[in-house]
């Protein structure tokens, strides 16, 4: 059970570190989200390489998204995505009703403004994973009620 906590602690410290160094004037504040997102991107690329090593080839985009929702999410967050919706035109909405990186934060409105920094890394993670599978995308996240959040994946057609 300890390994679950490790990732969470490391992730928390990562955010602290990025924001602390921003405070000390090493970079402007808006860049923090981008920096976290980029870290996630690289990690996602490596992870997906490892996770898809023994899986058969994917049929299509939806197949890839299902893999992200089930296997990828289970490996990283110990649960599956609760709801996957798509308009079949390149937009996917992944809903997690109890997102693990937000569960340690108060469920009220108090920390709602801090939520984006806890989601940036994961956005990058998904984007990196997809990009390594040959799907270029933009991933954004939104939170309305605390431990639940939605990731919107917009596939970019070439």
């Amino acid at each position, binding site marked *: 059970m300890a390994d679950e906590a490790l990732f969470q602690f490391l992730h928390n410290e990562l955010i602290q570190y990025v924001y602390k160094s921003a405070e000390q004037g090493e970079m402007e504040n808006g860049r923090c989200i981008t920096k976290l997102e980029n870290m996630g991107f690289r990690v996602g690329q490596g992870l997906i*390489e490892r996770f898809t*090593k023994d899986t058969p080839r994917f049929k299509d985009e939806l197949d890839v998204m299902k893999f992200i929702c089930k296997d990828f999410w289970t490996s990283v967050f110990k649960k599956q995505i609760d709801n996957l919706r798509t308009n079949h035109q390149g937009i996917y909405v992944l809903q997690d009703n109890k997102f693990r990186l937000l569960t340690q934060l108060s469920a009220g409105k108090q920390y709602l403004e801090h939520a984006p920094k806890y989601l940036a890394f994961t956005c990058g993670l998904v984007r990196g994973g997809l990009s*390594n*599978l040959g799907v270029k995308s933009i991933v954004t996240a939104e939170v309305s009620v605390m431990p639940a959040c939605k990731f919107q994946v917009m596939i970019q057609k070439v």
Partner: protein
Amino acid sequence: MAVCIAVVAKENYPLYIRSVPSENELKFHYTVHTSLDVVEEKVSAVGKVLVDQRELYLGLLYPTEDYKVYGYVTNSKVKFVIVVESSNTSLRDNEIRSMFRKLHNSFTDVMCNPFYNPGDLIQSKAFDSVVSSMMVQAC
């Protein structure tokens, strides 16, 4: 054992290519380059007619007079190509498969190395030694 092993990126440029030292090294580069068309063909056929053929290992791509070319494509569209001599009849399909397996495992390690930038040439020593172990030992 193999006479040439190559790793080709998603965008079809070589990440790694190694062949037994011989005077016609260029020929191997040419062989690998030619095989990419066959790989493309096989991969795009997936999901159309043969639904159950979704294995990463593509099997024999094409035989030439002197060599046999085998292919493998990862889910991230990175291609592995192994060229063996046709005269080497002792090599079974299963052995080729396990060679690709080993290659893929090692490639995954390279990808997960934080000092490696995805898309760069592979210069890892660990990867090198895995490849060496699969090459023809004679020369």
